[in-house]
């Protein structure tokens, strides 16, 4: 076991890699009653074409399959529902699928050993039948419909669809109802056998537990598990630099218009090779420009231009995209303001230093909660393939000159724009 000090955070972390390639990350706390465990695979909805285990030729699978597989993992041959198993000790369980990963979690305060062992067991034992695959389709379609009713979710999906030409990132994680109909038991096994291998997976545990005991349980369950594929060949999409569809307006069942803007940047043009460093600079840039203490926000607030505002960075292999969402009565005026801000960026050193201070404080705050700690390390494992033990220091060392250089390389003209507008027709009354 390797000890890693999470610098400036008063917390230690331990890592170990099993012979079969499985990564284990443990963060034991001394003052907590609860624990949080995640068992994850680097397999999400962005992967839809690959060379399956034992195969030589690439195949394409239906959209939404990573998410479908996640749902189906809860089906066990012995008929015991994992939710019921965890519930016996009052332990919570769940799973989620993102664009790049799938995770199975459990969290509670009791029966750590038993629950950890069971989590590993049920994720390692898929049981798909034609019948249980059919049955799941009803549940997943209701989930898709639930999200289709949320305007923000429609907006986000549409923006990604229009930003990218061919990358599967443009497709909603859950797929569409017609994608779901195509999924078979065989597809699920193919994806499972390819991506649920130790080398492609990792475990993170934080909270109240004994680290030696945890390692022992994990080794017992997984030490002999064979890694059936060493390097998975995933289709690389040659996503063009241009925007797939620059403008779209959709009328839907809302009262106040909503806008989404996406700015697409090829990483090679940004010229900061370290992924983490690039992310930190991009993120401090957007926070200074659009965060709660920004001049932009004060300006549009005074003009009463918008009622909410949200931004984030979107990642695919060779691109970074700045996504901006807002609700506004004046879509075109607000969009103009955003564009003006981005076309004339000025960074004040005071703002830059203050945001660094805020970020450092936030790192300290987050370590207070086992769930956020696991989530942070999880994100780092997915994005950077390692535990980042010196984040506070990296933030401290951010350099305004380097940020200004980066800005000089960024052109904010490669943009997708989506506007949701209120529908004029009112739904029929019964």
């Amino acid at each position, binding site marked *: 076991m390797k000890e890693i000090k999470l610098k400036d955070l008063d917390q230690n972390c331990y890592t170990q890699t099993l012979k079969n390639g499985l990564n284990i990350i443990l963060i034991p706390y001394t003052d907590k009653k609860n624990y949080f465990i995640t068992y994850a695979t680097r397999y999400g909805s962005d992967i839809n074409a690959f060379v399956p285990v034992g195969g030589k030729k690439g195949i394409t699978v239906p959209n939404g399959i990573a998410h479908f597989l996640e749902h189906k993992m809860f089906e066990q041959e012995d008929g015991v529902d994992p*939710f019921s198993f965890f519930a*016996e*000790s*009052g332990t919570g369980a769940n799973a989620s699928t993102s664009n790049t990963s799938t995770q199975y979690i459990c969290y509670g305060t009791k029966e750590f050993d038993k629950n950890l062992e069971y989590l590993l067991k049920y994720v390692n034992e898929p049981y798909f039948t034609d019948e249980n695959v059919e049955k*799941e389709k009803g*549940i997943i379609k209701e989930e898709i419909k639930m999200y289709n009713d949320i305007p923000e979710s429609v907006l986000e999906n549409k923006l990604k669809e229009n930003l990218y030409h061919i990358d599967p990132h443009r497709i909603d994680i859950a797929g569409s109802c017609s994608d779901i109909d195509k999924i078979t038991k065989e597809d699920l096994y193919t994806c499972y056998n390819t991506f649920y291998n130790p080398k492609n997976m990792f475990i993170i545990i934080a909270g109240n537990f004994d680290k030696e005991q945890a390692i022992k349980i994990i080794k017992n369950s997984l030490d002999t598990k064979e890694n059936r594929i060493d390097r998975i060949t995933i289709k690389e999409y040659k996503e063009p630099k241009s925007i797939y569809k620059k403008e779209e307006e959709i009328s839907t*069942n809302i*009262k106040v218009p909503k806008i989404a803007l996406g700015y697409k940047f090829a990483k090679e043009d940004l010229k900061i090779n370290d992924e983490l460093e690039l992310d930190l600079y991009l993120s401090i840039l957007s926070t200074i420009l659009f965060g709660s203490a920004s*001049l932009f926000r004060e300006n549009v607030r005074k003009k009463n231009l918008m009622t909410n505002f949200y931004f984030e960075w979107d990642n695919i292999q060779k691109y970074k995209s700045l996504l901006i969402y807002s609700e506004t009565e004046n879509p075109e005026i607000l969009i103009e303001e955003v564009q003006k801000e981005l076309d004339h960026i000025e960074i004040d050193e005071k703002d830059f230093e203050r945001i660094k201070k805020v970020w450092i404080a936030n790192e300290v705050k987050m370590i207070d909660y086992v769930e956020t700690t696991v989530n942070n390390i999880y994100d780092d494992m997915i994005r950077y393939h390692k535990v980042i033990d010196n984040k506070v220091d990296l933030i401290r060392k951010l350099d305004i000159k380097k940020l200004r250089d980066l800005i000089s390389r960024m052109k904010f003209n490669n943009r997708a724009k989506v506007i949701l507008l209120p529908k004029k027709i009112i739904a029929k009354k*019964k």
Partner: protein
Amino acid sequence: MEYIKKDLGSYKLHMIKTKKFKTIRVKVSFRRPIVKNEITMRNILSDMLVQTTNKYKTKRDLAIKAQDLYAASISSGNTRIGNYINTDIILAVLNDKYTEDGNFSNAIDFLHEVIYDPNIENEGFSEEQLNIIKTRTKTSLESLKEDSSFYSLIRLLEIMDKDSPMSYRMVGYQEDLDQINSKNLYQYYLDILKKDLMEIFIIGDIDFTETEELIRSKFAVKTFKKSRKKYYLDEVKPRKRKQVVIESDANSQSKLAIGARLTGLTMYERNYPLTLYNIILGGGEDSKLFRNVREKKSLCYYINSVPQKLDNILIIRAGIDKKNIKKTVSLIDKEINLIKKGKITEDDLNMAKEFFVTAMDSLLESQLSILDHYYMMEVLNTDDIGTRLRKMNEVKLSEVVKVAKKIKIDTVYCLEGVNNERD
């Protein structure tokens, strides 16, 4: 964890010392009996307070101040506690150990400014700021239907009993919003300071004596307040025959919301067997409803139940396809009746107890939940955590069944989706 309560005359100071968190949270609460047409005013007010102050005239200035205090945050919100409306203003700030000496004390000054030195001009709140907040509130009221799940809950409660506080829209009302101006808002603000019951809670790695002194000196409030109105809503008998109301909207999913009345529950039953009943029915991770309506019949993605014990009701919600409304309702009926008939096992009961114990243990890992717990002890006289665990553990199966017999469905509401599927 140590807890001390001090009666400082105008308010009670509750201090909880724990080494578990690097953050200190301070919550100032104001409450009074709820009046329907004050809700919107109160929402605007609590929003206004955390946007600007006399010293920090723009939202940006205020945000920068908070950031300078090592990413301190101040937030506000209103909730209903039975017959009362409650406003919380919450400060979260890192312990001085992780920032610098005096940072906490400065943050308390900041919190005090937010509450007691707002952005006032000519006996009224800043017109400019008020317009911004009113516009935003207007938009969110107009967009209420966009959250169809939430909207279906509001409609259910209104259809059950439109005059009861339980159906008051905590998001506020358009017609009340139109009446608000900077002057009457300021008068309402002064009225709150004068008449509302007040508490201050502090949780973190604090020194009791120092903290008490700090709060005493900064929050030198001198008004004497009292209220006799009870917190629990009066019981209402359920309809003899349940009413079914279906409304439609352009959604793809239908939102089902069912309201049941609880009658004749003792305080003990409300706090203990009812909690377990709900975990078994639809509150737990592996409830009867989840297992039998979702997993076995694939009728929905989400389904759950929640008791509102101060209102004497229990609510069940699910997102379903409109062709399955009848089928889902009859399955829910069936599950409710099975428990009434005593068709639950010791295993079900034990699982629910385990669930509760974990929930209690987890509560201790969140500052906000700990504060909530002590607040409820203060206003509702609920038991402390140790007592709650002990009494819950002693609940018998027959007591849960007895509670089940006091629960009756009153109204079935469905917001039917009439949007054709996209594919």
